[in-house]
């Protein structure tokens, strides 16, 4: 079992996707159960993987049992397992929320959702640069489908931008992979790290160009300044559970940056070591600042959440720019930032349904039913997203500040100012959404939402409230767990960063690990 553990996180969503495609004529309720059970199985696999690698072992899975530099390998280390767990936990609540009606607005929602998880799992686990390209393509084409799910002019317009930009990004990725292969003669990530140490002087320029092109590609995925313009429109216009799942997508870019920073161009890569150092911190700080300015200017809660995703990537990469302690702090912040962003997207959808005249825009609206519950939940989400005490966001931010104390002083200024701006933006949002009420005529009923994926004769869904609340409370519970279990979580994050600081372990496991 343990021998195949590294490939199970990839196989589970793929099997579920194929199954859901084959069984597309089943009633929606059954398909929802299959999708949810699949995600639950993926969580169990992710926990098993985490336990297997917690002791420091690096699981290497050779596809086709070819020896390492010649074949594609899957590599599960602590970092990959940690991110898999965060992804699958997020996916569980996204898929529960999708059951509140979003999955009926177009065809094949659950198939695309599982394919998205499939692509993300490959991206986290692969040990091959070209395979990483394929993983990006899989998760992108699934994300195109999910982003446009349900249709509508706004979705199609921002979807076109997203698709075209990402296709350009894919082309750049191919150029980068080609340059790396041309200069180093390998695409296996461990082997690249080894070859980089002895790169011939006439190939050094090619290798550097390839490495920096990779930085641009991963920066586009992570929505790093100046490559973030696709994000606010795309995330703010898509369906809520999709936006919630997409909160992890920018983290895939951040993961790829961290992996190439610590492995491909790590301390042992000779002339290529520290290739990203000059770019990483300034761009991360600028992204943080621009994200917060965008959040201040956002006219609706979904836009605000999308801008906060950008700011959170900035904070994450600021943390990754510090030393080992900074990487640990960032890795503790990563799940928190993802869950908090997802929670804000789900809250925006919930408020949109309960404010018929002005949706989630910051304009006065009549008092909503159960305002204490929704106001309380929004307060929790805002405290989590702004990184205020007592939740895990504050702990993470404190750790990031402590880790960057020795660095340039601008880091502290930027992080603290960003926290202030974030708090102001969220406070403005909360007071506009909940405090400024006025009597408004209920708008005339618009066109009913078109339910595409409903068979004739199938009963209508029960009221969507319980699923919506279950998903929101689930994310609240995750953030609370991350806060209460901060001790073990931080210890594990520190263990990850220690493993990342010793890339020779990874290289040795891949290239010289025991043959089965």
């Amino acid at each position, binding site marked *: 079992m343990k021998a195949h553990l590294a490939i199970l996180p990839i196989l589970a969503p793929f099997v579920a996707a194929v199954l859901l495609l084959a069984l597309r004529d089943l009633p929606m309720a059954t398909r929802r159960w299959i999708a949810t059970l699949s995600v639950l199985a993926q969580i169990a696999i992710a926990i098993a993987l985490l336990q297997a690698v917690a002791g420091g072992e690096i699981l290497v899975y050779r596809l086709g049992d070819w020896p390492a530099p010649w074949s594609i390998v899957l590599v599960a280390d602590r970092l990959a397992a940690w991110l898999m767990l965060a992804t699958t936990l997020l996916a569980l609540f996204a898929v529960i929320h999708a059951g509140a009606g979003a999955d009926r607005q177009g065809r094949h929602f659950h198939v695309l959702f599982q394919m998205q998880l499939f692509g993300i799992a490959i991206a986290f686990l692969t040990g091959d640069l*070209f395979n990483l390209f*394929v993983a990006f*393509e899989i998760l992108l*084409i699934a994300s*195109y489908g999910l982003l*446009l799910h349900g*249709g*509508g*002019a706004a979705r*199609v*317009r921002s*979807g*076109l*931008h997203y*698709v*075209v930009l990402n*296709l*350009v990004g*894919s*082309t750049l990725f*191919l*150029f980068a*992979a*080609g*340059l790396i*292969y*041309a200069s180093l003669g390998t*695409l296996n990530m461990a082997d690249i790290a080894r070859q980089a140490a002895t790169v011939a002087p006439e190939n050094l320029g090619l290798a550097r160009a390839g490495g920096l092109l990779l930085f641009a590609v991963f920066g586009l995925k992570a929505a790093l300044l100046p490559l973030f313009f696709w994000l606010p429109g795309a995330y703010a216009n898509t369906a809520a559970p999709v936006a919630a799942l997409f909160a992890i997508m920018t983290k895939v870019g951040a993961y790829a940056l961290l992996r190439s920073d610590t492995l491909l161009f790590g301390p042992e890569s000779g002339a290529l070591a520290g290739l990203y150092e000059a770019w990483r911190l300034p761009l991360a700080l600028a992204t943080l600042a621009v994200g917060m300015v965008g959040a201040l200017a956002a006219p609706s809660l979904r836009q605000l959440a999308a801008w906060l995703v950008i700011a959170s990537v900035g904070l994450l990469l600021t943390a990754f720019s510090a030393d080992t302690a900074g990487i640990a702090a960032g890795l503790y912040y990563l799940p928190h930032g993802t869950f908090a962003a997802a929670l804000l997207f789900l809250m925006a959808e919930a408020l949109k349904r309960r404010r018929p005249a002005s949706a989630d825009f910051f304009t006065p609206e009549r008092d909503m039913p159960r305002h204490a519950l929704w106001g309380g939940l929004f307060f929790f989400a805002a405290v989590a997203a702004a990184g205020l005490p007592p939740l895990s966001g504050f702990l993470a931010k404190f750790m990031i500040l402590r880790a960057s104390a020795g660095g340039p002083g601008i880091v502290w200024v930027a992080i603290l100012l960003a926290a202030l701006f974030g708090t102001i933006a969220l406070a403005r949002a909360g007071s506009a959404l909940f405090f400024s009420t006025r009597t408004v005529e209920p708008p005339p009923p618009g066109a009913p939402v078109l339910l595409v994926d409903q068979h004739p004769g199938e009963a209508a869904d029960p009221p969507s409230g319980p699923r919506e609340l279950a998903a929101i409370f689930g994310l609240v519970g995750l953030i609370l767990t991350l806060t209460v279990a901060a001790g073990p979580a931080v210890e594990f994050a520190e263990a990850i960063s220690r493993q990342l600081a010793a890339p020779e372990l990874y290289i040795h496991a891949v290239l010289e690990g025991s043959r089965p």
Partner: protein
Amino acid sequence: MEALIALSIGVLTGCGVYLLLRARSFPVVLGLTLLSYAVNLFLFATGRLVIGLPPVIVGGGAAGSLANPLPQALVLTAIVIGFAMTAFVIMLALRARAELGNDHVDGTR
């Protein structure tokens, strides 16, 4: 031959970037296609350009210089993925034309 290949890749990339920056979605799709042609040629050249060498399997086992087979596998993968993506983006551009009433990439004239 190096100059010819380099020139072809350069011209394709240049035209692709120019078309990508147009305001209507049809030239943008064409630009993406040209870019993917450029990158396919480029990947093919990453194994270094050689003439008259055998592929990886040599009859009689006379192992010497070989044409590098890996870039060919990479190009095949890239062609297939690029083809699928082009088909998708064409459908999306048509959908945008129908939903937004014009084919400007921003949806407004």
